[in-house]
């Protein structure tokens, strides 16, 4: 939380798909701030809301979780936060536990874990609009039985109940907290085993009775709880090494004792807690599975949408529609951005007198940032569709349908969404891999994801195809230009799957993969939330990628502009004698077997900032008049360029093909490396990625060019 929080703030906790984010949006409006938790790319969302009397308070929206154990990265964040709170590190005044009313018992499991913490819990009983038969239960009594402050029925979709929720929250902040006994019955065997742990928690960490029992139970049940304490201990929040050693030893002793008695300690907490919870619900006349035999509307829709044959067919059609939209809808806004960037550049040209500063701003900064902004429309449209598919619940069905195929190639059903995002941009794709709970499959997904042809390769393909591939018909119907483009996408995608299989055979990582995944009910998307999400993701993308592009653009500009020579004495392109030109000449022998000359060499180096930079770099090299986007001139310039000695055309269709294949495979995007570094927490994997992808690119280009020469092309 920010330092502005003095008195009370509210934490929003709940299961995935409980409508937690919808409630967060409802309470905060647009007063939101999104950042990342330290060290990981899990989004940290904070917002500001007001009580009825106008007083402000902060809300933190925690990642969705089923339980307070720390298995996946999202769960770990929640568990760590909670442990911070109980150790007095800025605890919230109230925890709002968001509960899906259509799925009461499983949602309340987490709620009862929260109720043990000694912080008042208010339940937001969301999705009441979806409950067919009105719940005729005594909510006050149920709240009392579960040891929570209040249960407030509401609907974030229909926007009612938030007033009552706020009232309940304010009331429990103002009311003195009453400690309840630990509600779960522990038999003598278990009590005896847990007692030593309970005592250390009480004496050394000053936990109250309920919390000490709850933490002792969780510690014995889950090894990961010990790891969390260990980490906290390293951060100096809890206790010293001696304490950790005692905790570790006593845990092991408890585990051994339980195994002797034949109790499965690893499922102990969930079994006991559900037994108790189910008995409370039964006593309150709540059936835990009232509609087990009935097909609800989602199930009926799924008769078609996940049907053996129709399901995959619909998915493919949908994909086709999405990619079609990305390319058609984006053209107009891309044109606006292009003109806007040009306009800004011209304004600067008029405002500042000629000189180095002006060159730096116009050619370095504005051109560089413009090159990344141009792809924003495509990325936003793709993100819009992805968010929509995710929020309606369809994405989980895609994972369900594709899991078999994905596991055959060493991936996971949940790799589908990140891989699809990769067609727009690898960065959001890599970030969304964190929904894959097995580390090995997540890592492989990250490693192959940049092989999906992202939108930054498109300008390169477009330029090369437009200049060198004739628009002839193949088999009477297919356009050779279009076909070439499809082949490039296909080449990247199939290689990605093949390599996934190869990597899965070689990468040995602990941990078994499972596919225990909820298929949430289909829901009408909450439009404001969808647009908000797209806006926030877009902003993060521009800021993160923008920083890198800006830096590289400035460096490149410097390399291409210095050392300055007196242009009147030399009648050739000044770039030839610049640092960039020198580098191009140095690497020329190395890239000659691929059919590339020093000019493409500079382009390749520049494209390590971002792939599309190749186009603007080539334009600069050919001294094409000020309009960077004047592709027609660049095409002609490249076509008519001759080899200085032989007088033959420098670039042929074979060179174009070789270059495109190089771009299909090469790892060139700095921003991607930075994200991979973040997500894998080491430079090992981004380095591996750079080596394998560029090796592949070099090899494939070599085969294309040399093979083509042998066959007499070019």
């Amino acid at each position, binding site marked *: 939380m920010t330092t502005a929080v003095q008195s009370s703030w509210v934490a929003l906790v709940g299961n995935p798909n409980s409508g937690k984010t919808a409630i967060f949006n409802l309470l905060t409006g647009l007063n939101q701030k999104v950042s990342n938790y330290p060290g990981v790319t899990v989004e940290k969302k904070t917002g500001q809301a007001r009580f009825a009397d106008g007083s402000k308070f902060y809300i933190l929206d925690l990642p969705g979780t*089923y*339980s307070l*154990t720390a*298995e996946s990265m999202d769960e770990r964040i929640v568990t760590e936060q909670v442990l911070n709170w109980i150790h007095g590190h800025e605890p919230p005044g109230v925890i709002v536990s968001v509960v899906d009313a*259509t*799925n009461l*018992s*499983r949602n309340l*499991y987490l709620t009862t874990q929260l109720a043990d913490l000694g912080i008042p819990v208010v339940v937001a009983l969301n999705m009441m609009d979806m409950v067919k038969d009105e719940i005729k239960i005594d909510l006050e009594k149920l709240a009392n039985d579960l040891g929570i402050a209040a249960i407030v029925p509401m609907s974030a979709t229909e926007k009612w109940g938030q007033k009552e929720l706020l009232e309940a929250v304010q009331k429990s902040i103002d009311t003195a907290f009453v400690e309840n006994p630990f509600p779960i019955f522990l038999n003598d065997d278990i009590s005896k085993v847990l007692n030593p742990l309970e005592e250390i928690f009480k004496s050394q960490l000053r936990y109250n009775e309920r919390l000490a029992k709850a933490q002792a139970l969780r510690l014995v*049940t*889950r090894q990961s709880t010990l790891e969390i304490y260990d980490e906290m201990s390293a951060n100096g929040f809890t206790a010293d090494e001696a304490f950790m050693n005692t905790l570790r030893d006593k845990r092991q002793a408890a585990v051994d004792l339980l195994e002797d008695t034949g109790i*499965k300690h*690893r*499922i102990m907490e*969930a*079994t006991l807690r*559900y037994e108790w919870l189910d008995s409370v619900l039964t006593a309150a006349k709540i059936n*835990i*599975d*009232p*509609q*087990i*035999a009935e097909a609800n509307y*989602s*199930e009926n829709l*799924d008769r078609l949408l*996940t*049907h*053996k*044959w129709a*399901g*995959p067919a619909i998915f493919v059609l949908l994909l086709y529609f999405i990619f079609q939209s990305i390319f058609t809808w984006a053209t107009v806004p891309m044109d606006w951005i292009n003109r806007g960037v040009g306009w800004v550049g011209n304004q600067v040209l008029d405002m500042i007198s000629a000189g180095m500063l002006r060159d730096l701003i116009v050619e370095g900064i504005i051109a560089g940032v413009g090159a990344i902004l141009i792809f924003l429309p495509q990325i936003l449209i793709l993100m819009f569709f992805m968010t929509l598919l995710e929020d309606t619940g369809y994405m989980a069905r895609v994972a*369900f*349908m*594709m*899991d*078999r*195929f994905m*596991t055959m190639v060493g991936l996971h*059903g949940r790799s589908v969404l990140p891989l699809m995002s990769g067609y727009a941009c690898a960065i959001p794709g890599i970030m969304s891999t964190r929904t894959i709970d097995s580390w090995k499959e997540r890592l492989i997904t990250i490693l192959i994801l940049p092989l999906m042809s992202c939108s930054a390769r498109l300008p390169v393909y477009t330029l090369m195809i437009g200049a060198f591939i004739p628009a002839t018909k193949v088999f009477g119907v297919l356009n050779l230009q279009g076909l070439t483009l499809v082949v490039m996408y296909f080449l990247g995608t199939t290689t990605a799957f093949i390599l996934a299989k190869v990597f899965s055979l070689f990468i040995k990582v602990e*941990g*078994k993969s*499972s*596919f*225990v*995944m*909820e*298929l*949430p*009910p289909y829901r009408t998307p909450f439009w404001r939330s969808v647009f908000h999400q797209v806006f926030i993701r877009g902003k993060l993308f521009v800021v993160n990628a923008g920083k890198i592009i800006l830096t590289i653009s400035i460096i490149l500009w410097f390399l291409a502009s210095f050392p300055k020579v007196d242009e009147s004495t030399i009648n050739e392109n000044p770039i030839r004698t610049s640092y960039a030109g020198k580098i191009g000449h140095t690497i020329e022998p190395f890239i000659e077997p691929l059919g590339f000359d020093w000019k493409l060499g500079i382009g390749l180096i520049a494209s390590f900032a971002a792939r599309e930079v190749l186009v603007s770099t080539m334009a600069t090299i050919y001294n094409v008049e000020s309009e960077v986007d004047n592709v027609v001139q660049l095409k002609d310039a490249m076509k008519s360029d001759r080899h200085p000695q032989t007088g033959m055309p420098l670039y042929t269709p074979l060179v174009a093909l070789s270059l495109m294949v190089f771009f299909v495979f090469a790892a060139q995007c700095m921003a991607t490396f930075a994200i991979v570094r973040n997500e894998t927490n080491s430079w090992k994997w981004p380095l591996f990625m750079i080596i394998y992808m560029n090796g592949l690119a070099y090899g494939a280009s070599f085969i294309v060019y040399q093979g083509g020469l042998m066959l007499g092309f070019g």
Partner: protein
Amino acid sequence: MTLFDLIDGEIATVHSFIGDMELQSRLVEMGILPGIRIRRIKTAPMNGPIELKVRDYHVSLRQDDARNILIQQ
């Protein structure tokens, strides 16, 4: 019999688990424990994972994992 043997559309009660403890911990935390009723809804395309209804929500798991869940009909 195991959940793997249950026919799509039929309801059974979870009896116990065998095998991998990691899977068991995940299942029980999602409320799938002995005594609970489950309905096997369908099998995914290409003979993929299965879809279940339990506690009035829908969940999918792989067929190999379904072999580790013993049921009674």
